[in-house]
């Protein structure tokens, strides 16, 4: 341990926090950053509550109010609530499953930096000339298109939004792989603690939901910057956005909520001293059921868009149905008190409050699920009240509970119980004073910046505003309490709650070798040891994730600032950002690959453990499969959008009239044969035939490049000889976007091949170690399969 400390002393504080890849550090970073974003979004909420506290107020103008309402929603949901759950997932889940870190530590750091920087982009979009985006967090088209929300501000905000999607995809691949693959021996599926289970559900939901949002945003940015017309009114785009958005938007509610539920399910048994009512299996099954159901309810956000009556009826039933697993969870939470001996410590108080708030939010949710009742409630403050109870309230109180519960674990010191209770009382009362009056304002439209005195809405709004200010003020107790624990004033024991989940009792499931590497080690309360990582992790600082995230952010910022089809004076200003970003990105990616090649960053994997699908299934392969699943959903959403707009258009150019079937077919054959050569390359690698590997992978590279080159000629011909461009109506819009996106995937494959060739030349791909060739083969097959779907849609139909 002395040695570890010595190594540690040499690292500067700054270097540690910028380059860390260690799950506890990243958990802390997530925690602090999401609190920062809560502060920003809370400030915006305060401005809104001042404005609405009296009728006819002129404190904010309509544009400022709309920007505030939009950024408040986006930041609260995506940069505060959701990442706060991820903070605990980072810190606690590896400890709960007896792993020394996540499956991919550097990707974990990458997720964090993308999350931070994307949020900064959103905040900065406020200060762009022309202001930020004011169309609501739902970003409805066509209001969000360049025609109705012009300027670099909205573009920058959406680019940040895109980066967040990337962050979340990377993160969910990481967590899913970790939970499936990194469990210590003895941690079978039956032994997995509740918080880890609910984190798993959350991450699976994210993997399912975010591709749809990513697809929608890519289409939107393509419309804004390249002048395509996916969301133009004439292509039915308004409803297309609704579908894509809510396919993400509704599951997102559960993404936000489930981590809090997971924490509550840990806290209840600990403070009642008895196990949860209903068997664990039932609770896990209920949580599991939420995952598919949450997607099947998305259209209840479209009850008044005029979708067919049968769909409305169907989605009412599914929405009622999703309340059943939540009934099971809540009822068993309630019954888990029976016969217990309840210790009303701060975490327990917050957990109880979260359940009560969720019950109120849940019951009012049933109102909105009824497609008839929804008619008059939709778009009003009834909805605002409902989702603040169910999503904001239940989640915040649940995560407050989680914070107080795990704070002794994270700081090795206790918070002040009295201050905690004060925080609880003030927050609980003021929360209800803030939001309950909004149920009674069920005639007031949401997102209006002011209202007339004659409406009679003034009193309730005034009461709500008072509640809001008290709620914000009472968070000072929370911050002070955090400081008390961090400063280490109040000592505690290693397991102050006498809990029995593994994070409190490390070593129960962990093998001997693992124990040594658990830095918070063996349930000790030693602050010095706590602040250290293991020796392995100290060598595991990496500057690549930060560089990669910054590079990506700069590139996208440059694109957003260009806004070249708008004729704005910004033309050109974005370019330096764009090229600097690309350079940084390239440097980071090459550096990352180089680190891998020389084995600079090696994660020692546990020898054996509980793994799915099997012990011998490689970790990276599991990660790649998970990643490809999300890619399938991205392409699925985009191709569905294509079919949607195409069904909407009456006229479509006949096959062969624009795209040459002959050239298309030849190119398809070229791409498909590259799959075969990739397979032969893998076979050569398996038998340790370096020459064969180089020859076949070289041929694959040549075929892939040929494919891209032919595409280039086709595009040149289309644009300059035929005048067929991205602006040429929907046929042009869809063709250039989808084929271009596929081409970008081919290009990424070519880059991987260069890496393989370089590595093979260095003699680092051997009979025993050729995983990279196999994984590349998987990816390359995926890219080819996507083309098999694209080719007929554009060339033959």
């Amino acid at each position: 341990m002395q040695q570890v400390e010595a190594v540690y002393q040499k690292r500067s504080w700054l270097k540690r926090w910028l380059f860390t890849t260690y799950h506890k550090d990243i958990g802390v970073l997530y925690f602090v950053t999401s609190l920062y974003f809560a502060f920003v979004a809370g400030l915006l909420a305060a401005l809104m509550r001042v404005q609405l506290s009296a009728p006819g107020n002129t404190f904010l103008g309509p544009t400022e109010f709309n920007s505030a309402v939009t950024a408040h929603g986006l930041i609260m949901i995506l940069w505060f609530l959701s990442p706060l759950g991820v903070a605990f997932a980072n810190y606690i889940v590896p400890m709960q499953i007896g792993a020394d870190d996540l499956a991919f530590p550097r990707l974990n750091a990458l997720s964090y930096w993308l999350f931070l920087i994307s949020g900064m982009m959103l905040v900065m979009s406020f200060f762009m000339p022309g202001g930020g985006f004011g169309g609501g967090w739902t970003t409805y088209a066509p209001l969000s298109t360049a025609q109705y929300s012009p300027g670099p501000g909205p573009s920058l905000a959406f680019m940040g939004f895109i980066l967040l999607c990337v962050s979340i995809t990377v993160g969910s691949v990481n967590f899913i792989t970790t939970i499936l693959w990194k469990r210590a021996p003895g941690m079978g599926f039956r032994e997995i603690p509740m918080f880890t289970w609910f984190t798993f559900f959350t991450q699976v939901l994210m993997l399912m939901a975010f591709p749809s949002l990513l697809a929608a945003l890519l289409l939107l940015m393509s419309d804004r910057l390249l002048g395509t017309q996916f969301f133009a009114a004439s292509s039915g785009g308004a409803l297309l956005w609704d579908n894509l958005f809510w396919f993400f938007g509704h599951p997102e509610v559960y993404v936000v909520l489930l981590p809090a539920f997971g924490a509550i399910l840990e806290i209840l048994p600990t403070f009642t001293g008895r196990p949860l009512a209903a068997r664990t299996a039932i609770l896990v099954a209920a949580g599991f059921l939420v995952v598919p159901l949450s997607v099947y309810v998305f259209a209840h956000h479209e009850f008044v868009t005029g979708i067919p009556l049968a769909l409305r009826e169907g989605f009412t039933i599914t929405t009622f149905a999703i309340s059943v697993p939540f009934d099971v969870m809540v009822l068993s939470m309630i019954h888990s008190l029976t016969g217990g001996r309840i210790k009303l410590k701060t975490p327990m108080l917050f957990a109880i409050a979260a359940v009560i708030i969720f019950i109120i939010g849940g019951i009012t949710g049933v109102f909105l699920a009824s497609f008839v009742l929804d008619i008059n409630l939709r778009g009003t403050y009834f909805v605002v009240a409902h989702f603040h109870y169910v999503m904001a309230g239940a989640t915040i109180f649940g995560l407050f509970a989680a914070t107080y519960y795990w704070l002794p674990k994270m700081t090795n010191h206790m918070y002040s119980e009295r201050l905690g209770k004060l925080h609880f009382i003030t927050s609980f009362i003021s929360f209800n004073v803030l939001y309950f009056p909004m149920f009674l304002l069920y005639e007031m439209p949401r997102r209006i910046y002011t209202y007339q005195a004659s409406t009679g809405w003034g009193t309730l709004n005034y009461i709500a505003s008072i509640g809001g200010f008290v709620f914000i003020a009472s968070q000072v107790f929370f911050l002070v309490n955090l400081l008390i624990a961090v400063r280490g004033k109040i000592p505690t024991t290693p397991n102050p709650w006498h809990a029995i989940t593994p994070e409190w009792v490390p070593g129960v499931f962990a093998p001997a070798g693992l124990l040594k590497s658990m830095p918070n080690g063996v349930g000790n309360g030693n602050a010095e040891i706590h602040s250290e990582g293991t020796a392995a992790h100290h060598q595991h600082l990496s500057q690549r994730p930060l560089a990669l995230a910054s590079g990506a952010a700069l590139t996208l910022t440059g694109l957003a600032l260009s806004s070249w089809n708008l004729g704005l004076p910004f033309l050109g200003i974005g370019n330096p950002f764009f090229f600097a970003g690309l350079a940084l990105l390239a440097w980071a990616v090459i550096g990352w690959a180089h680190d891998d090649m020389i084995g600079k960053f090696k994660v020692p994997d546990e020898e054996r453990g509980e793994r799915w699908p099997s012990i011998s299934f490689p970790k990276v392969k599991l990660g790649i499969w998970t990643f490809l699943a999300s890619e399938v959903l991205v392409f699925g959403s985009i191709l569905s959008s294509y079919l949607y707009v195409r069904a909407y258009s009456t006229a479509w150019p006949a096959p062969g009239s624009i795209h040459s079937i002959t050239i298309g077919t030849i190119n398809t054959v070229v791409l498909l044969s590259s799959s075969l050569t990739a397979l032969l390359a893998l076979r050569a690698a398996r038998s340790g035939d370096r020459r064969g590997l180089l020859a076949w992978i070289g041929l694959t590279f040549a075929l892939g490049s040929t494919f891209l080159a032919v595409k280039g000629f086709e595009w040149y011909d289309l644009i300059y000889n035929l005048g067929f461009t991205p602006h040429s109506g929907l046929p042009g819009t869809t063709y250039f976007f989808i084929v271009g996106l596929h081409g970008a995937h081919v290009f990424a494959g070519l880059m991987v091949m260069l890496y393989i060739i370089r590595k093979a030349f260095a003699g680092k791909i051997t009979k025993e170690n050729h995983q990279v060739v196999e994984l590349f083969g998987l990816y390359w097959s995926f890219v080819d399969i996507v083309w098999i779907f694209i080719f007929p849609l554009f060339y033959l139909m």
Partner: protein
Amino acid sequence: MNLSVGYLITPTQAWYGLWDIFVYLGIAVGVVVISYFVYHVVRYRSKEDYVPTYENKNGSHDLRFVLVSTSLSIIVLIILSAGTLNAASVTFNPPATNDTVNIEVIGHQFYWQFVYPDGRSLINNLTIPAGAVVILNVTSQDVFHSFGISQFAVKIDAIPDRYNTLWFSVQQPGVYVDAIRCYELCGAGHAYMIANLTVVSQAAYQQWISQKVNG
């Protein structure tokens, strides 16, 4: 033109009837569940800091409670579904009568335009005859809006390139000031996208319509 169709159940009445069912049942369920919960918190409270054994003394009673209460909640949901479907049969089926007025509603940033069958159009004032079945065909000229008359519990989205229909009927003549609002954020003027609803007697409406605007 026929007499008024006052014997009809309107979407307004259907909505308020359903609202009452939801409110009473919702409050009942909420009060029972939360009281039960809080009662348990108080009853099983322990002031001492003990080391728990995590034994389950309740055994199968737990499971029975969860199953029975979940089944009860499903029964409540079935009642609410039936109520919803019942109300829907009114809300989405305008009665066939020749006392029907068709009006086109067009949302603009930021005003409402009402176009009558004879082509005349009103801005921010929807005039309808009392007691008639009013069918509105709602669309938008630019972005998403949502047309709603909260007092009469009707609402439908105004979406570009798409026509959505709703029907309602008002018995009491009069000017309902600011009754019509936009319920979907549509830009800077969203808060002021407000219109009046003017309900006039059948006779007055006939007279107004017969003053044919020429040119």
